[in-house]
């Protein structure tokens, strides 16, 4: 439905501090018989920050990446980061719903030496793509070392399912503007109760613990550096709920959420807060382990919250 071979927009984080996510994603994708085509010379999507300063600038940043995808012959882009998929989908939304905007953007692209857009490619989060194109059965088939006994809190963060205008997780009939009406994409996860990550990890033998409503509670996101007080409180709620519900590990699917959880985990422990020590791992790292790869293959040693001891204690690493 989306395609077995898609354009891969890793985003800045995955080339640096979050390389574990990139490496494990590539492993999982290969194992599941899918293919990622790396977007050459892409640029930052602007995350959640640039849009607050410049609407057109942010649109252009994303249009350039879309154009690169078209040049490489793709109609679908896959991004493993909530922020990146949000930014590309947001650009998609505005380009599709505002009159004359596409023409204006194309002109500016040309001026900047970038091929104009002949059509607007659609962006999917990695999780949505893996679930749709491979799904739990395929994961089960590939699992050589089931994640037996591992209790996981599946953390989706905000922008994977929200807002529906961009992520297309919901539809309703209201609204004056026909084109701007929310439309659910058939491949999309449930908007308030996402389950794709639960399903994939359960297929790999893990056990999901109850985690609502913290599964989509914000980690502080774009304010994780600029508003430490609020971010710290949010992360504390997330970590403590995971602990209370018996999770060994928090599975993440966004490098920013992941970094925010790990960073504030250090700070909360230092402050002497209770029950904040659940470590985090990317869901692709856990799938990689289940597929028989070693902890160092999926770069578990990179995780600053150190999930190795708990995996070792269950005989998984």
């Amino acid at each position, binding site marked *: 439905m989306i395609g077995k071979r898609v354009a891969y927009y890793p985003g*800045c*984080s995955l*080339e*640096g*501090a979050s390389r574990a996510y990139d490496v494990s994603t590539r492993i999982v994708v290969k194992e599941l018989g899918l293919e990622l085509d790396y977007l050459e*010379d*892409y*640029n*930052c999507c*602007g*995350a*959640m*920050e*640039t*849009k*607050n*300063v*410049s*609407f*057109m*600038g942010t649109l*252009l940043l994303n249009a*350039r990446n879309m154009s690169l995808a078209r040049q490489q012959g793709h109609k679908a882009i896959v991004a493993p980061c909530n922020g990146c998929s949000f930014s590309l989908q947001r650009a998609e939304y*505005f380009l599709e719903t*505002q009159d004359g905007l596409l023409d204006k953007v194309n002109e*500016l692209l040309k*001026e*900047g*030496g970038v091929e104009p857009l002949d059509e607007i490619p659609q962006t999917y989060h990695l999780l949505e793509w893996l679930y749709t194109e491979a799904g739990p059965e395929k994961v089960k088939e590939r699992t050589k070392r089931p994640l037996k006994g591992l209790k996981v809190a599946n953390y989706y963060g*905000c*922008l994977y*399912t*929200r*807002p529906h*205008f961009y992520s297309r997780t*919901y539809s309703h009939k*209201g*609204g*004056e*503007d026909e084109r*701007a009406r*929310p439309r659910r994409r058939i491949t999309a996860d449930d*908007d308030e109760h996402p389950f794709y990550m639960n399903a994939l990890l359960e297929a790999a033998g893990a056990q999901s613990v109850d985690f609502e409503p913290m599964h989509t509670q*914000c980690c502080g*996101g*774009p*304010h994780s*550096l*600029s*508003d430490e007080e*609020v971010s710290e*409180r*949010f992360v504390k*709620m997330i970590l403590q709920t995971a602990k209370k519900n018996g999770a060994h590990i928090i599975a993440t699917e966004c490098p920013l959420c992941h*970094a925010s959880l790990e*960073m504030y985990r*250090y700070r909360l422990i230092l402050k002497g807060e209770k029950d904040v020590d659940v470590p985090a791992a990317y869901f692709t790292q856990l799938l990689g382990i289940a597929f028989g790869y070693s902890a160092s293959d999926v770069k578990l*040693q990179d995780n*600053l919250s*150190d999930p190795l001891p708990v995996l070792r204690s269950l005989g998984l690493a």
Partner: protein
Amino acid sequence: MAIHERSLVEEDRILRKEKLVVDGIDVSGDWNLIILPRVIEDYDTSFLDEVLKEPEGKTILQCYQCSYCTASCPVHNYWDERYNPRHFIHLARLGLLDELQKRADVMWRCVSCHKCTHRCPKGVLVEEVLKAILRVMARRGLIEEYPSKKFDKFFLDTVVEYGRIEDGELLFGWLEKQGYKIVKDPILRKPIPFLGGTPKWLKDMVKKPIKSMNISFLMLNAKHMLFHPRTKNWNRFRQVLRKVIKEEAK
């Protein structure tokens, strides 16, 4: 008696009397609480017009004040009740700028989680509208520099310059802007993470890959801090970006 949306009423407008007689009738007890009325005579809609001119601000007109956004908002629920998206939209529409200004200390705290936008039954792009309101307030000098605005600007400048961002630079650059004393090497002027005034938690965090001898991880991140990752075909595009951003700032 409880006051509905208590955070919207100023202390000095609430009167509580031990004994109260109105028109000869003793209404002490349950009816002893009065909220003094407020009279607003002139509405200034020029503020709303400006919000409507922002590309993300248009949907503000669709709001019918149901407050689903506020009920969903984690900043409202877990941080400060005075952060109230529905109310901000209401004030912006009426042009009650002094009321907006009174809330300037919390208004910037939106974490962009988009619960509001997602759940709004009227299709208001709430998060984006709130950002548009903030932008117009800043343009009119109604709100002082706030942390997230500084960070957004810092982020955008990096993207425009290099095409890519780098986590280490973002983190240490930001800490330095906050007044932390960051020690830099004398030649390349790059931060040395585990020296100087780097906060303790961060020193602990940086030590983890060092202690576990995660050499390739350290090398990769050191390389990125020394040689900022760049988009190659960027010069011409950067010029266009700069032009567009400058035009918008007018």
